[in-house]
């Protein structure tokens, strides 16, 4: 499962870790994140993310 990096702040979404504070379970692929998911660091939307 690929990692994705936020273009704005550099945060890396790692599917293995998920985003527990944002209610995302480990094992969730980036594609499977809900459309309204935002970067836990800077608040940018999914469209700011690119594959690492």
């Amino acid at each position: 499962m690929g990692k994705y990096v936020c273009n704005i702040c550099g945060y890396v979404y790692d599917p293995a870790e998920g985003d527990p504070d944002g209610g995302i379970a480990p094992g969730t692929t980036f594609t499977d994140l809900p459309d309204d998911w935002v970067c836990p660091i800077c608040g940018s939307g999914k469209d700011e993310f690119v594959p690492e």
Partner: protein
Amino acid sequence: MADVYKAVKLTDRVYWVGAIDWTIRDFHGYTTHRGSTYNAYLIMADKITLVDTVKAPFKEELLSRIASVVNPKDIQVIVSNHSEMDHSGCLADMIKLVEPEKVVASTMGAKTLQDILHLDQEIIAVKDGEQLSLGNMNLRFMETRMLHWPDSMFSYLPEEEILFSHDAFGMHLASAERFDDEIDPAILQYEGATYFANILLPYSPLVTRLLGRVGSSGMTLKYIAPDHGPVWRKDIGGIIGKYGEWAVQRPTRKAVVVYGTMWHSTEHMARAISEGLANGGAIARCMSLDVFHRSDVAYEILDAGALVMGSSTLNNNMLPQAADVLTYLKGLRPVNLMGASFGSYGWSGEAPGQITDILKEMKIEVTAEPIKVQHVPRENDLARCYALGEDIALQLRRNKEVA
């Protein structure tokens, strides 16, 4: 401008050429009780370099201080460590006047500066770890994204062991003294913590990571030169250590009681809660929003273990000043807090419930039902408030995470 404004020497080859703003008190909603400085630095390398500029109205002061060392037109390189207007406000004018060979910023900085200043000049983007030769000296760049903007970047001058750290390690403090060892440590501690709480708190996990990167980078530091407040040359370990502590936000037994009141009823409740807290062994801070500003509350929250928030109900809502401080604190994303709410009301009493909802959204552990009192609290109401304070104090004492 008269040549009363002189540069201050850090080393034989590096000067402070910034501006002192003695009168600013409202920094985009952060109350700066002691004013501020906008720091810029001049590196007298083979390629004369200016690190950051100042807020637009202070351009003449910047130019005068530079001119006390060198003709500003001799500057060949301008580095922008942070694009925010208090540091880039006169960058466009400086570029026109100086016509530098290069203006450099981080990748995000190069973009942000164009969005802010709409420049004709190209801004050269430098990458994390990249080095720029200034002839006999070098600048090494380290991206520090989101500390506190996406563009933020450190510049390190190894030949003089100076870290130009943009807003990090800074504070809003206007002073004629330029170095940490010339200023009362208690003031440095207070203003440094206030700055951290109001500017860097949301990005605390990144601060922890950055301190690790700085530690493992092999950089030796004789000076940390931030964009606001004094230059660190004595207690460098002290301020780095404090950043480590603040970023972790380990709670203490401090409980902050914050309230908005209309006819003093909610205030009586706040005072009763504070008495209960103190009697229970907590450190109570009782802060009326009529006299304390949101940024004062943020300072107290930095090392607090509990936030107890109260508001009267006005037209079915919490008071605007309560909504103000809650919106602000929510953005600062404090962690490791427990909380509760309270308030007096006339007929409907929505405010305490609304506050509790927001505390939960902030991931604050709400440990009690909201206390609501119709109109003026009676003795038994105040006893309930006192008991809430005692109970929160007890929980803080029992919590092993609490320092």
